[in-house]
């Protein structure tokens, strides 16, 4: 049995033209409403106003050290089970490893983070391994031999994220065990080395997957307050709490640009170009990924610089201050792009996970699952895709509007927002066009 070249057999039909057009018109209307009629005072941001905490019973459970250990142990056990298939399973399409990495983990983290917040930091097996090692030698896990350099910011996570999307979208033989295994081993070594040097705070902004889960998790309706209580909150307040840091802009641009490249790479014109090019496919693929990310970055830097000038903001501040507004747009596009993959390939992977060694076993009782579409039709999927993209656009526009009121003096606030709204409409329409054409 030969391996298929990617995960997932069935892909979504292109969305109908009317749906793409409707989404684009909605995006424009929302933007104009935001520009003209929304609030005129900044309401979101650093002083996050939390509403009521969750019930006292839940507070006690969630604050107990045992609760944290339950999740750490669950993370370790899941990682160990995953390694069974990775290290000892047969290198065939029936091995669950690729599905676990690219579907259950990478795509599954999106809904989990959207609901519960930055979940990966609580189960991250690498963080737990570092914690256990520190406990064994009786050292404070937070205190590394060296202080975490201030200027590092999100740069390690941005590099890690790019490395992962390159593996997912470009790397040759990317669903085979040696390729996945080598990548994960290198990643684990890099993360543990960072933690050994700088302490466990390294994971906060250095581990691409913790940062990915944290970015998306800022939209969750619950959060842990600084005083430790778990409380309901406004998702927009959570997102506005993402403050500028070195590498933040690159990070959000890689997140949005890489998903757009995934659409481009499926379009017939790109397939033809890659196959008829004299260069090896990984070279054209890498160039394409870099080009799409570069275009998204150029549009972002251009629009924010122009907004800063028109709005008379302090120079060099707008790009970082507005990066949080891109996250909902990227999340909307991620959900639209990967919803069916998670639904169908997720079930397929859970069935395969019952027999990671390929011995005909049925350890989880899921081996016999038949994959259902859960009532989705091409029309309902298209509807969902346009809806989540428009919701992402609305949230991004509101966040940018609110931050613009802080950045720009009232006199120039409206004119300063025009380039930002043009940028958001550009990203949204590009996303819709890609779903229509690719």
């Amino acid at each position, binding site marked *: 049995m030969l391996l298929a070249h990617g995960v997932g057999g069935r892909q979504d039909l292109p969305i*109908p033209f009317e749906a793409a057009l409707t989404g684009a018109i909605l995006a424009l209307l929302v933007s104009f409403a935001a520009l003209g009629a929304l609030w005129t005072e900044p309401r979101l941001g650093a002083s996050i106003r939390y509403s009521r905490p969750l019930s006292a019973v839940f507070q006690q459970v969630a604050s107990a050290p045992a609760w944290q250990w339950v999740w750490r142990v669950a993370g370790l056990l899941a990682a160990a089970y995953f390694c069974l298939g990775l290290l000892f399973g047969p290198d065939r399409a029936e091995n669950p490893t690729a599905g676990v990495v690219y579907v259950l983990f990478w795509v599954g983290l999106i809904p989990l983070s959207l609901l519960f917040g930055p979940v990966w930091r609580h189960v991250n097996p690498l963080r737990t391994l570092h914690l256990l090692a520190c406990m064994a030698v009786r050292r404070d896990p937070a205190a590394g031999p060296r202080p975490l350099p201030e200027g590092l910011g999100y740069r390690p996570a941005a590099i890690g994220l790019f490395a992962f999307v390159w593996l997912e979208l470009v790397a040759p033989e990317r669903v085979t065990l040696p390729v996945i295994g080598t990548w994960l081993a290198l990643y684990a070594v890099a993360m543990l080395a960072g933690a050994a040097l700088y302490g466990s705070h390294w994971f906060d902004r250095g581990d691409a997957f913790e940062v990915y889960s944290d970015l998306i998790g800022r939209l969750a309706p619950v959060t842990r307050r600084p005083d430790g209580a778990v409380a309901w909150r406004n998702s927009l307040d959570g997102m506005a709490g993402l403050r500028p840091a070195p590498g933040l802009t690159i990070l959000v641009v890689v997140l949005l640009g890489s998903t757009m490249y995934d659409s481009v790479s499926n379009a*017939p014109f790109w397939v033809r170009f890659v*196959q008829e090019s004299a260069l090896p496919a990984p070279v054209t693929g890498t160039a394409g990924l870099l080009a799409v990310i570069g275009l998204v970055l150029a549009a972002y830097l251009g629009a924010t610089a122009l907004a800063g000038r028109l709005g008379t903001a302090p120079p060099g501040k707008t790009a970082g201050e507005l990066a949080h507004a891109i996250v909902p747009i990227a999340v909307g596009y991620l959900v639209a792009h990967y919803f069916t993959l998670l639904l169908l390939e997720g079930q397929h992977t859970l069935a395969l996970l019952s027999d990671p060694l390929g011995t005909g076993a049925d350890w989880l009782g899921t081996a016999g699952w038949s994959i259902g579409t859960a009532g989705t*039709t091409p029309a309902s999927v298209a509807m969902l895709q346009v*809806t989540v993209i428009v919701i992402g656009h*609305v949230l991004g526009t509101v966040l940018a509007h609110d931050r613009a009121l802080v950045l720009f003096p009232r006199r120039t606030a409206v004119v300063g927002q025009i380039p930002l709204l043009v940028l958001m409409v550009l990203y949204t329409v590009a996303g819709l066009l890609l779903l229509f054409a690719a």
Partner: protein
Amino acid sequence: MSLVLARLRPLAAVLALGAVLLAAVACGSSDADAPAATGVKEVAVTIAGRQVTPPPGRVEVAKGQTVRITVTSDVADEAHVHGYDKSAHLQPGTPGTVEFVADQSGLFEVETHGAKLQLFQLMVR
């Protein structure tokens, strides 16, 4: 809280308008798509020197239609329809055929496994 709601009113109005528009689009399109699934859809592809003829594009068929794909390659290979998991062994110069009923909708890649070439994408509506 009511102040926030009042300020959000224009946004809510836009969203309501959008919901109506979306519903109109969804209703409009559901009537139109149901082409008759009759006859066999024949697709012929030739591979010579890693060059795919016709060049990779999209082939649209109706759900329930029978699809017959004939692939002629200048090297030994295996043609594969993603998702339906149908394959044909290809001997150099001898056409190989895959025939199946396209009974699930979606977009499916048809490719060769040896040379790793995409032949076309099958669009089942």
